[in-house]
């Protein structure tokens, strides 16, 4: 299991030296916390669901922010593209946010409200959008020759009506991820809501070593087919990913949604 702190570090490290510097500085000089980091809500057509994001200004001074919604697309490489403009079939017209500008004082969390009101004739679907929080002005940091600016997106999934994911195994392959050949499952989502795999599999690699493989919890959007990495670890040490010697045979069962599951019996070879 990758620990969250490690995830932060790895993500920050991935964007290169300059941005890493910004990340470390952010810990020292800037801090805005948005909690929770994402929402998974449900609502019936014609009704309204209301929620709030808790924003905490961690800096010593007050901060000014603009807030708005955005559509987003989850790219095959697991990056996210945000769009201020309405994308086709966007549900943002159903969304209302508390306000567009906000000042936050340090030390006092602010509960920023938003609500989603799908019309009564809305068809069952998953409404997805992001609440974007942007600093209104770049902030300069002592010792830094330039100023910093940023925005953050809190992802919101809203299940409108009775929708659920339906995940199917569409294939298997081996791909290089971060320089390491990695077994991948190709998962197709024929349902109406995003889904994620859960659980683990047992495997035996070419050297006869028994391994445990955890499926990545990357979301799979309705209608798309996405490659899901299987991260291998040794039994008894779930923290350290290990290199796989191919071919590897993988068996077990993965779960998704409330009740879904799929048997896996695959051999992976580059």
């Amino acid at each position: 299991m990758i620990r969250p702190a490690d995830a932060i570090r790895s993500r920050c490290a991935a964007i290169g030296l300059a941005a890493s510097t910004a990340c470390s500085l952010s810990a020292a000089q800037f801090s805005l916390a948005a909690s929770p980091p994402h929402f998974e809500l449900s609502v019936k057509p014609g009704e309204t669901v209301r929620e709030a994001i808790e924003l905490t200004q961690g800096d010593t001074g007050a901060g000014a922010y603009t807030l708005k919604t955005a559509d987003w697309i989850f790219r095959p490489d697991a990056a996210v593209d945000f769009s201020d403009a309405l994308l086709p079939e966007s549900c943002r017209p159903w969304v209302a946010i508390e306000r567009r500008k906000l000042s936050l004082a340090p030390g006092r969390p602010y509960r920023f409200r938003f609500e989603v009101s799908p019309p009564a004739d809305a068809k069952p679907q998953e409404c997805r959008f992001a609440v974007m929080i942007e600093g209104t002005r770049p902030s300069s940091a002592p010792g830094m020759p330039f100023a910093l600016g940023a925005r953050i997106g809190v992802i919101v999934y809203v299940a409108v009506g009775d929708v659920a994911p339906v995940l199917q195994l569409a294939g298997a392959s081996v791909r290089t991820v971060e320089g390491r050949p990695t077994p991948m499952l190709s998962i197709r989502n024929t349902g109406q809501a995003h889904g994620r795999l859960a659980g683990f599999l047992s495997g035996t690699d070419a050297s006869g070593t028994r391994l445990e493989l955890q499926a990545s919890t990357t979301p799979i959007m309705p209608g798309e087919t996405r490659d899901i990495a299987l991260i291998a670890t040794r039994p008894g040490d779930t923290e350290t990913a290990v290199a796989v010697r191919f071919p590897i045979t993988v068996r077990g069962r993965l779960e998704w949604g409330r009740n879904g599951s799929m048997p896996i019996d695959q051999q992976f070879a580059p």
Partner: protein
Amino acid sequence: MTIRPDRLALRLCWVGMALASAGTGAQPTPATASEGRDAMPHPSAVAPAAGMPAPEEYVDRVLDDSPLPIPPEEIEALRTGWPRSYSIEAQALKQSSGAISADSQALLFSAHLDTPNHGALSANLNLNRNSTPIHGLGLPGSSGLPYALAPDAYRTGSNWRVDQRGMPFDEGWLGHGSIGHIHTTTSPLARGLGRVSLPIQPIEGVAIGIERPDRTSVNASAGRLGYFDGLPVPGFSPRQGSAASTGAQTQLSGGNGPLALNRTDAALQFIDAHHVHPNGAAGDAQHTRAAWAAASWQGVAPWADAVGHGIGGIGERVGGLRVQANLARSTTRPSGPGSLARPGAATGAWIDAAWRTGLLQQSASVFRFEPLLRWGAVALPSDLQGASWRSDLITRQWQAGAYIEFSNGVSRRQDASVYGNLYGRYRLDSRDSVSSTLAARSGRFAAQSAQFAWEHKSGWGYTQWRTDLAHGVNLRAIRAGVDHAWNVGETQTLSTSLSFENSRTANLDARTWIWGILGTTPLPGGARLDLSARGSHGIASRPRHFLNANARLAWPLGGGWSFVAQYAAARGQEPFHPAVLSALTTATLQPAYLTPASRTLLVALRHEARAGVSRAPIGGGPGSGSGRIEGYVYFDHDNNGRREASEGGVPGVTVVVNRRHVARTDAQGFYSFPAVTGGSHEIELLQDTMPLPWGSADASSRRIDVYVRDIASADFPIRMNR
């Protein structure tokens, strides 16, 4: 350690970089949350969406068109100077116990300053003013009701300490000093590898130490003995006697670092306690002088070729072995001609080892404690010898363990006994798992116990069905119940618990409902409400009632001010979970104090201010601003690392940050360090302040990252030794 989900806040990592002069030409980086389970900012979302239509600004509907609330007065950012902070809190408390009520006021002040050349300076001062019967003690009068001897009399108290930590000297030496209400010092090895550790003792005095981190340390402390009291208003009460302690530890061989192979360390510690009253009575006043020596070795196990993968220390890695041998001797004599204390000398020796073979984490110990063995003012395990072995297996599918202990009395006054324990948890899939624990003990206190549990995750939340059975001398009990953590809002938690117990103790039958509810919710204005209530209701001929309720409202007011209100009510004794204890666990049992029925209302107003800039030198050292660490220590009855509604907080546990800074959990198990420097910190629960047979769930110390001006929330489960 568990991180509360509501605190798993997404930190705005300002990954976007833009030259201020570049205007809009430099696109700030979007950062997204939640894609992937870690929900962390995703830096690769920099590029504009390929093929997207030209942006046409969409204007959101808004719920509130009113003018912006008047922004709070801009707080001048004090970004110069050394990192510094202070916190001042005024508390008023009203406590009633039966017919007695008491009012208390307290003023709590803490401050810290990180300096580059003199280490981190911190000060804590708690002044309190209590009406005399603050503990609810009363004597039965002619009416049969308790009464207060002097209800309007007040006494004042204080609890203070000043610390200097990490003062740098040449060649990497660091100095530490403390004065005030502190604990006696010990060497790191004194915390032990197994189940017996050298206890520390509260004193009003001074402590100094110097160390080359992870290599050599020397410590000394002296002062008047006492104890921390006054929950929830902190205080310190002196007791009879004084103690002086000194010791040293050094590395004898091997490489550098905690994971070095063939590393040998040795430690010595002495303590001299004068005029101690072990039972609180002058008639048994005694002097105790004790010495302890220990040596540890870690490296490749004789049966292995190398140390392999794994996490933790050498003893937790495949092929690794860690051994520690301890020898303690105490001499006790009466402190005066009127004392009836038994003179004598006693020796204790215990060896612990930990190693890992493939999937199995193993540990073993042999121990021998002669009668009347003491360490300062505290008794060590006494009149017991034996051996134990433990083995644990943890995979994604299986968790299993076995423990066996053979023991008998050194003086032959105690019977021999064998204690065994088997534990298993099998994960059926990502939604279901089953587990069971079986324990049995032979000898005069022969008993057997069993627990069975099924955990299920559904759209409603997380459910655990659990059954406990116990059978022994004059004891028969069966308890069955269900715990449920409900799926509520993203920023809320709600757990409930309900169980029924049918028991027969000392020929008396009892049937009892046991219930609990635990939740937290945000409120308007940034406030947060924590609620917990646990209770039991007897329905048999010998009804027993228990209640422990707590509500805590924390309301940040802005500008560094915050308001806290807390109401707590306690009545009766909580029913124990049926379980069998080993002889070693029983030998280390500390007396349990019954808390009188009480109701407490506390209100507090706090002001905090922090400032300063990080000036961390290369190679570490003091100085990176400060944040807060807080959380709960709770009884993890079912060993699943989650807090169920039936699982109460643990009062009086000492929590230590970086082995120097100390806080104690309040009556609800809540602890807080208001000003902690940013970075990674070691948090430790002192084993000897936990109610036995409970201990830390895993390692007794964990590391937690603290971000400047942020709150790091960490809950710690403690579990019954299996």
